């Protein structure tokens, strides 16, 4: 196999920072543009742009905030260029989502809080989430397995997710 593209300390630092932060940058892109293929393309463009302009980045400042700023501009450009059928929100919705994108900065805290809050759920609620995210069963199939309507399971899932969000909010504020 080939050696790494570049073994310089600069490249290693970049990869370390990118690895630590790419999930939250990707999460932000995906929230704006809920299309996996398009989001991956934007993430790739963002990574390349960040590498090309890494000299502009000052170590010690917020790497993910820098990435999110770049990604939001690339999303805007992408939406302008995209003429074909891509599910995207309109410009006002995207602006609102960008304005509220600081929530993505707290990803690590959220995971700690989420772990705590998950334990507080009822056992059947935990099982529902296990089915959805560990066994990767989609809601219509869960509904079929449980002999319930899809709408009912979506409502149950929504309630579980909302109670987790409330718990996380409490955790983070305390």
């Amino acid at each position, binding site marked *: *196999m080939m050696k790494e593209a570049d073994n310089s300390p600069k490249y290693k630092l970049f990869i370390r920072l*990118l690895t630590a932060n790419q999930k939250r940058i990707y999460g932000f892109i995906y929230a704006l543009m809920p299309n996996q293929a398009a989001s991956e393309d934007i993430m790739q463009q963002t990574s390349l742009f960040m590498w090309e302009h890494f000299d502009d980045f000052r170590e010690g400042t917020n790497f993910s905030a820098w990435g999110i700023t770049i990604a939001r501009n690339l999303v805007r450009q992408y939406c302008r260029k995209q003429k074909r059928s891509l599910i995207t929100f309109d410009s006002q919705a995207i602006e*609102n989502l960008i304005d509220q994108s600081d929530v993505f900065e707290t990803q690590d805290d959220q*995971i700690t809080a989420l772990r705590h809050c998950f334990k507080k759920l009822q056992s059947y609620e*935990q099982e529902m989430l296990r089915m959805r995210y*560990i066994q990767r069963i989609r809601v219509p199939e869960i509904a079929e397995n449980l002999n319930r309507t899809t709408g009912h399971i979506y409502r149950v899932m929504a309630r579980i997710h*909302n109670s987790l969000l409330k718990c996380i909010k409490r955790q983070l504020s305390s």
Partner: protein
Amino acid sequence: MDEKEISKITVYTLKLVEQTIGPEEFEELNSILSANPDAARHYNSLMMMISNFQDRGKEIVYDEITIEGALKNAFWKEMADYERTALAVEISKEEPEKEDKTLTEIRKIRPKVSKLSIYSLLLCSATLIFVIAYAHLISMRHGIEVATLSDSMNAKWADIASPVEKGTRLVTGEKRWLLREGYAELLFDNQARVVLEGPAEFQILAEDRVGLSYGKVYARVPQTAVGFSVYTPNAKIIDLGTEFGVQVEIGGNTQLHVLKGKTMLMAGKTDRVNMEISQGNARKISGKTGEISDICCRPNHFVRVINSESNCVWRGQNLDLADIVGGGNGFGSGTIGMSIDPTSGKPSSKPEGRRGASNDYRLVASIPYVDGVFVPNGRSQQIVSSQGHLFQECPETTGLTCENIINVTTNVDFLVTQTQYVSDASLRAISMHANMGITFDLQAMRGLIKGVDIQRFQSQFGIRRYAVRPSASNADFWVLVDGKLKFKKEHVKIGQFHSIDIELSENDRFLTLMITEGDDPETRFLEDMVLTAIDSDWGIFIDPVLVLSPK
């Protein structure tokens, strides 16, 4: 926001992630997010939580790291404490095992070998060593010319001092080629064809091996070059007679998408994995952990063919005939609203009213992929190509027509029928009023992207909604290949919506689309109005495409 609204946003978001959301639900979600910043905040928080579950679900649900880590730490701590405080244990010297004195007589038997066999063996061994050493020497040798830069488009190379031009021979070695922008095609001497999309950094490692540090590469490997390989920082992909794309992301992940045939993937950091990946499948190899995961195969993710002469970049998409009517190359370079006048064959961007014309076949000189246009009337022989192909079954018409043959989007016809919902408002379409015909030159299009076959013609069609008197609409739709009728649908009215799918062979030269007035009388009456035969016959071919496939 009240609980009900929060719940609604959450349900829609969960559906969006699972791609089960309906168009109306998506619209409603969009409106809520546009109107309410709090809703946008809730949506973002939810998306982040879902993303955390998707990426680190096991860690969250099973608390794997915490439990395992804690157990491990506790175990080692206990162990260390125990070792510090435990009493020394004397280990007795082990008695050496007594040798079994019972002897069995073994008669040494010398095999009889002839001198000839020994000489043969020595000769074979020497030959084998030479072959292995030579192969090794060859593979290690640098500076051997093994490939040619067969084409490039808008390519910007990092090494400005020594420009890489078409025809440049590429040699094996340590040199890293950096394609900053644009596209480059390499033709290896074993006929393997590789297309690179900038930014990309690569090396020519051997006569059948490319190393990719980052960027995208697409390989088309004929039988003569089976075994061709792409090496990335964390994987080897070996061709087994196929077409495949490889992307190395800047963070080190490798993606493999197999579009034809099969490949052998070798990856993994501690546990090396070899697996066959076949057509329609894709894998991602994590740059960090070496873990291999299934991903969706994306057929249009890689540039497969480039042609600098026609300025074409082909990613596997279909050829759009509406774009060609708009003066483009079929891949989106045409102009919306551009049209061809069927009574002159000239391009036009102005609307033309109702008019009559002879049924002469008019060549279209301005667009290389459109052979000609005509206003069919069936009163005399109807020529439908520059090669003189005749359409024998052409119906008799009034010879009237209205407007031009126009490259449009379906934005103007968002609802093509009362019942059929066209979800994509920006589909390309050809608007053709009765009576008009247009002939495309398939041969010219084959030259557009070499190495690709035209396999089918597909389209949907109907009557445009903006007809002023919908009930007067009535038109016939025809599709011909080299003058031979391949498809017809008569008496199509507003509110009806149909599809066409025609197989094409490599010998087919011309494809003709035609719309006529549906046998309506020259003069007819509707609610005290006198109408012509072509009234309200606004035909439209929606998403008219030629389906392409690599040869």
